[in-house]
């Protein structure tokens, strides 16, 4: 369908790949998370894997994770060794393990089924909950069922990005529809897994106002079939179409105020069906979501609080002169048919 964007995405690929040996994970870190409305410690592991099979044919316009993947699938034992090493580095009191493969954990072409199972069992001895990521087409009974009932809660995260199929097709080049995502999530739940849905705040070619509306609609769409909905404001990766647009002056990541706005508008409409959270990556840098710089830390702290508690009153005290600048964009954007920054 959207041949043009596919070509454009392909045209922005870079040759950089993982420099690490197959037994070594890419990185691991500690982060704060929430389990059942209480704070918890999570450990994130970025695996050194083959990466996303969909990326090999084109991939998404904002995704540069392929630059941290291996050219060939390593043996199952190497994957297991990566997690063994990572678990040895587990932070104090970690209850959640999040495994990011820069692709689809459930796709056996990427991570062998025996490796998947062994990793789940490794995690089960140490953590209460395991999060993995997958496109919906890999969420099938034969893949998911064996991973359940191992003494650890399995959460599957989906890159829903938007509930608007034209946005998915013409700007993200996602390669699936919102309904396909929903059905994958419903299957995951039916098997007994938890569901997390990622939303992309400000895909390319959308104005700030359009992207806020789109993200709010996405959250409302995702709430009934998700346990958690995560708003991911664009963080510009190397080797992506979005990066090309950014360098051409035709794209700017969203304001943190826009994250605040999405949460403020979406949480009441989600009716408590799912938790809405946001932990912006690369926040307050040129490549990530930011405000004027002076208020960024304060606003991020409020976003974290609301993410944990769903209590919007944490936003009430936020004040900065740059909010007026942000507001101007809503007025200006509809008069300037462009996705470029307007001021």
């Amino acid at each position, binding site marked *: 369908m959207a041949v*043009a964007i596919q*070509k454009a995405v392909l045209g922005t690929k870079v040759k950089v790949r993982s420099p690490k040996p197959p037994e070594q994970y890419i990185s691991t870190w500690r982060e704060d998370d929430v389990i059942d409305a209480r704070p918890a410690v999570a450990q994130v592991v970025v695996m050194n894997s083959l990466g996303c099979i969909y990326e090999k044919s084109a991939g998404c316009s904002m995704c540069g994770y392929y630059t941290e993947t291996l050219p060939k699938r390593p043996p199952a034992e190497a994957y297991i060794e990566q997690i063994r090493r990572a678990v040895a580095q587990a932070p104090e009191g970690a209850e959640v393990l999040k495994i990011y493969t820069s692709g689809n954990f459930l796709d056996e072409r990427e991570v062998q089924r025996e490796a998947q199972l062994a990793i789940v069992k490794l995690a089960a001895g140490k953590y209460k909950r395991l999060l993995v990521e997958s496109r919906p087409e890999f969420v099938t009974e034969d893949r998911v069922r064996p991973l359940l009932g191992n003494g650890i809660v399995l959460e599957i995260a989906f890159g829903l990005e938007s509930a*608007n199929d034209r946005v998915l097709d013409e700007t993200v080049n996602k390669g699936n529809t919102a309904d396909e995502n929903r059905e994958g999530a419903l299957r995951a739940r039916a098997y007994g897994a938890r569901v997390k849905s990622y939303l992309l705040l400000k895909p390319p*070619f959308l104005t700030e106002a359009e992207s806020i509306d789109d993200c709010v609609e996405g959250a409302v769409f995702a709430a009934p079939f998700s346990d958690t909905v995560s708003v991911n404001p664009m963080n510009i990766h190397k080797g992506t179409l979005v990066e090309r647009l950014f360098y*051409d002056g035709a794209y700017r990541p969203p304001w943190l105020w826009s994250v605040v706005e999405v949460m403020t508008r979406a949480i009441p409409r989600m009716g408590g069906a799912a938790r809405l959270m946001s932990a912006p990556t690369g926040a307050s840098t040129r490549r990530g979501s930011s405000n004027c710089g002076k208020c960024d830390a304060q606003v991020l702290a409020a976003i974290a609080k609301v993410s944990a508690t769903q209590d919007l009153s944490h936003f009430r005290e936020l004040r900065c002169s740059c909010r007026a600048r942000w507001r101007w964009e809503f007025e200006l954007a509809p008069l300037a048919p462009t996705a470029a920054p307007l001021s």
Partner: protein
Amino acid sequence: MAGSGFAVETLRRDGLGRTARAHVSGRDLLTPCVLQAVSRSAPADGKPPAIVAADAAAAKQSGAIAFHWTSSPLFPGSTHVEGAVELPRLVPKAYGIGPLSDAADLILVRGAVAGALPSKGGNEHLKPLAGSADLVALQNLTELRGKPREFVRAVAGAREAIGPRPLLYGAAVADPASVSLLVYMGVDLVDDFQGIAAASAGTFLYGFGAVSGGLPGACRCHACVSFFGSDPTPGSPSAGGDAPGSGEPAPRAADEEDLGRELGEGRGAASRRDLPAIPQDSALFRAALAHNRGAISKEATVAAHQASAGTLREFVESRVRAYPWLVAALRNLDREFYGAMEALTPVWKERLHALSQESLHRPEVRRWGERLRARYRPPPSAKVLLLAPCSARKPYSLSRTHRSIDRALMGVRPAFAVHRVVVTSPLGVVPEELERVFPAAHYDIPVTGDWVREEVERVEAQVRGLVEAHPYKAVVSLVGDDLPSLQTAIPGLVECAAAGRAWDDSLGRAAEAVRAGLSGEKDVNPRTRTAEDLASIARFQFGAAAAEALMEGAVPKGRYPWSRLFVGKEQVAMHVPDRGRLALTLAGAARVAAADAYRVETGPFELKGDLFAVGVKAADPDIRIGDSVAVVREGRAVAAGFARMGGAEMTAMRRGIAVDIRHKA
């Protein structure tokens, strides 16, 4: 196709720029026109002739001709308003991601109006709009501000692709410094969006650039006078804060950078999130908005006047100096769009001022060089080439300098074997018989005696061209004090002038050298030379083949420059002294048309008055505005007249006079 269209008619044309009239929503829309961008904080102000609104609802409010954008196709939902013109908005695929193979992604047609995106892959996708659209709304230009090459390819390239007829709207891109360049690149409609954007940051836009908080006293518009007071202290940055009616001080960026200036520069300002944001109900915002709107609209008014007067180029050259990227844009335009601009540039104007380095490359000047190379040949009787300096007075032959040369050469025989050629900038060389041809007799240039390398190289190349085209026995120069390098560039050149040498001394040497060069030459009949000179003009004007057909057996009568050309008893052309061009009679038109040049073919109808574009079946693409042309019906020349459009324009337009008829069968 054009049934519900806008009936676009060009009124005056100056290259790609023009003034035009279109019939929109039952009213006349005159261009160039600034659509007043209206939004909640920036409602319609005064009585704008036309507005552009973000959505249908806002478009309804005003009494003006209203345009409104549809919503993004990604989020359908806009409703159309009766009487307003819908501008189809596309998914703003950015310029950077081309080449895009699918033209359907880049244009969206709704009736007579098309939305269009520029593409790095070229403008092929816009060509179908040349015949089908009456208005093309070009989007995504905002991010091309500050990128001269891309900006020019997008805008002038769009005009080139859609041809001269449809209205072209360049959206959300114009500021006071760029309006004239946009018009010069063929944009008919702009808007004052940048004025709102700047006002939102408390920035005032002027022709010379942008200033945060405004420059008290720099403008006497109503908004500035009431905001800054009627007697502000110029240069006082605090005047804004003290002015009656203003509730807040002029904004200053904390780090002392002039962010407003950056805003005007286009690039760089793009990612600033720390620009001041002026409250929409403040006096500062209202003053800046009203001023900015006025400043942009004033520029369009001046551009319209300049286009009508044929001096748009001069205006553009002065305006682009506000920002380096605009100067670069003009240079790119000259380099990449000469053909498109030249085809629509009149062959005659009242004057031409060569004011800047860019003047050397303006279409009129470059055309002079191209025609000299492609069409010109020195008169056969010429034996000695005498290179002479130019003069402020035009034509040169009436100047003191040239009369002093006449006196020095008095008694040199044969007098009509001397070919005097003026060396000048920006044109290069001007052979004496072409001294009345535009722009030779019409240009003015700041003369300091300093020549830049580009000018010197141009002169050398053109003199070399003359010497190679014609077997002169001697080349004598009187320009050595200005151009000493000519002596080495042209082998055998006898240089008579030198720095510090008295003019009379130089003249004496030149007369000697000319006399030596002419020794042993047979006498040249003055009538022969006049005929040759007129043939030169004919070649320059019509090309070699048509000139030969016109001059075959033709004899000049009357004292040059009031010459007329006769074949037997029938006049074929007259020389028009103040234009330095030949005007064809019906008989002359038949001769030129027979050589398949400068002909305009009409359908089988009787001409009544002028020939309108709608009646033109075909036209020689070499025809330029102001050319003397032949009107041909069913293979027979039926009229002679002056072209009011370029050849390609005659077939593209559906309205307006194509040929101003002077002689009819």
